C-alpha cells in the first residue's frame, strides 16, 4: 500500500518535454491548471482534455504510468463525482429511495468535475514524469530567484536543498517504514484491528523507530554533505545550465493556442 505512492517519480526519456526547460514547464503547468479551471463548458474542457492527451502523447511516457496514478486518486475522484451528482438542476431522470433526484444537470456536473480533477492529475504527472526532481527544484529555485533581491537569498537556496533531500529520501523512508512494520508484526503487534485509539497506539512502535532512524540519517547526511564541500550554497555552480531553446518557444506557443482556444470556446458556447 505504501509502495503505491509515486510522488516525484521521474520516467527516463528523450521526448520534447524531457528536453524542454524545467522552468518553462512549471510556468506551462500553472497556466494549464488555471485554464482547466477556467473552462466553463464541456466544449472548452473537452478542448483542454485533447491538449492534455497530446501532452501525454508527446511526453512518450507509457499511458500505463499515468493510469497507475489513477489508482491512488480514485477515491477522491469517485467522491467528487458522487457529491456533484446530487447538485444539479434540470430534468429529473430518476429518483433514489424516492427522495434524492438525479437530474441530467447532476450527471453533467458530476462528469465535468471528475474530468477536471483527472486532467489536473494527468497534466501534473506530465511534469513530474518528464522532469527529474533535481531539475524541478533547480527550476523552482531559479523562478524564485527574484526574491534574492529582497534579502531572501539563503532562504531560497535552503528551500531548494530541502526539496531535493525530501524527494531523495521519500522512497528510502517508505521502505524503512515497511521494514519496521514487518518487524513489529513479527513480534505479534496487531496493526489491523481495534478501535481508533488502539490503532493510533499501535503506531507508536513504528513511528518511534522511524523517527529515530530519520534523525540518525540526517546526522550522517550532514557529515557526508560537509565532506563533499557543501558550504551552505556559497559560490555553488550547476552542472546543468538551464537554457531556453526553440522547443520552449514552440511549446509556449502551443500553450497560448490552448489558452486562446479554451477562452474562445468559453465565450462562444
Amino acid at each position, binding site marked *: 500500500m505504501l509502495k503505491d505512492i509515486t510522488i*516525484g517519480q*521521474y520516467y*527516463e526519456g528523450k521526448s520534447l518535454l524531457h528536453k524542454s526547460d524545467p522552468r518553462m514547464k512549471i510556468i506551462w503547468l500553472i497556466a494549464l491548471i488555471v485554464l482547466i479551471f477556467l473552462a466553463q463548458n464541456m466544449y472548452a474542457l473537452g478542448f483542454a482534455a485533447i491538449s492534455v492527451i497530446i501532452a501525454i502523447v508527446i511526453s512518450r511516457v507509457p499511458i500505463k504510468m499515468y493510469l497507475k496514478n489513477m489508482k491512488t486518486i480514485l477515491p477522491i475522484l469517485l467522491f467528487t463525482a458522487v457529491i456533484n451528482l446530487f447538485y444539479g438542476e434540470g430534468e429529473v431522470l430518476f429518483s433514489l429511495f424516492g427522495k434524492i433526484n438525479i437530474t441530467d444537470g447532476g450527471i453533467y456536473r458530476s462528469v465535468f468535475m471528475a474530468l477536471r480533477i483527472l486532467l489536473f492529475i494527468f497534466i501534473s504527472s506530465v511534469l513530474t514524469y518528464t522532469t*527529474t*526532481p*533535481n531539475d524541478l527544484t533547480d527550476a523552482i529555485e531559479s523562478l524564485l530567484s527574484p526574491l534574492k533581491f529582497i534579502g531572501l537569498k539563503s532562504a531560497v537556496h535552503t528551500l531548494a536543498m530541502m526539496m*531535493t*533531500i525530501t*524527494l*531523495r529520501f521519500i*522512497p*528510502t523512508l517508505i*521502505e524503512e517504514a515497511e521494514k519496521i512494520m514487518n518487524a513489529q508484526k513479527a513480534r505479534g503487534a496487531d496493526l489491523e484491528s481495534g478501535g481508533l485509539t488502539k490503532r493510533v497506539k499501535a503506531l507508536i512502535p513504528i513511528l518511534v523507530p522511524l523517527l529515530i532512524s530519520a534523525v540518525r*540519517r540526517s546526522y*550522517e*547526511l550532514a*557529515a*557526508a*554533505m*560537509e*565532506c*563533499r*564541500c*557543501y*558550504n551552505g550554497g556559497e*559560490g*555553488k*555552480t*550547476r*552542472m*546543468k*545550465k538551464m537554457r531556453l531553446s526553440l522547443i520552449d518557444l514552440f511549446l509556449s506557443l502551443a500553450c497560448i493556442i490552448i489558452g486562446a482556444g479554451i477562452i474562445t470556446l468559453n465565450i462562444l458556447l
Partner: protein
Amino acid sequence: MDNIIEIKNATYSYTDEGISHIALNNISLNIKKGSFTVILGHNGSGKSTLAKLLNGLNTPTSGDIIVDGMNTRDEEKELEIKRKVGLVFQNPDNQLIASIVEEDVAFGPENLGLEPEKIRECVDEALKSVGMYEFRKSTPHKLSGGQKQRIAIAGIIAMSPDVLVLDEPTAMLDPKGRAEIISTLHYLNKEKNITVVLITHYMEEAENADRVIVMNDGEIINDGKPEDIFQNVKQLKEVGLDVPQTTELLYALKQKGFKVNTKALSIEDTAKEIAKALK
C-alpha cells in the same frame, strides 16, 4: 615517496554525560602518497574517529593532522583539505543527496564552484572509474547496495581528491557488493593514483594492501605488511579480530608439526604450502 597525511601526536577525547572518554590516544602516523593502507580494529577501537580527523571533519583535542602541508586546524584551508581528502561512510543511503545518479555525483564539484562543462567532465570520468557510467540516469534507490556505494565513491572522486578514506564501506553489503567495492578501490589506487585508506573489520579486505594498521582502545598496536600482521593470530584474536581462514588453517597445521610458511595468504599459495609440507 612523500607523505600526503601526517598525524602528529593526535589525541581525541569527548565528554558524554559528564564522563570523559579518550577515543584516540596520542597517535602518530604517516600515510604515503599513492599507498593502499588498511586500518583494522573492532567497533569502538577508535578507527572511525581517526577517519573523521583526516579531512578535518573533526579536529584533534591535541596534536595535529597535516594534509599535504596544511594543518586541519587552519579554517582558511578547510574546503581545500576536504577536497583533497574525501571521506566515504558505511551506509550509502545516507550519503546520496540527489535522486538521479549523475546529479548526485555532481554535488561535490558544484559546491567547488566549477564551470558546468568541467563539472560534466568530472562527473562522467568519476562514474566511469567506478564502473557506473551506464547507470548515470538511474535513481539510486533502485540500485543494489554495492552500486550505491560505488556512486558514493564517485561523488568523492568527482572532486579529484588525492586521498580516499573509507569508513567501513562494505559493512552493510553482500559478498558481491563487497567484492565490487574492493576491486574498485584497487583500481582507483593503481590506475588513478589515489591514496586509499580503508577502515574495515573484514580481514580478507586487507590481503592485498601495502600496509595494515591494527587499532585497539584508541591506540595503534601493530603496523606492517598484511602477511606479517596476520602472523600475530593471538594478538588479533585478543583484540576481537580474526585472521583470514587461510592463515588460520596454516597456523593450526604448523602447531601440528607441519612445516608450512604461515605467511601465505592467497588460496593458491596456501595450497602450495600444504602440498609442499605433505611431501
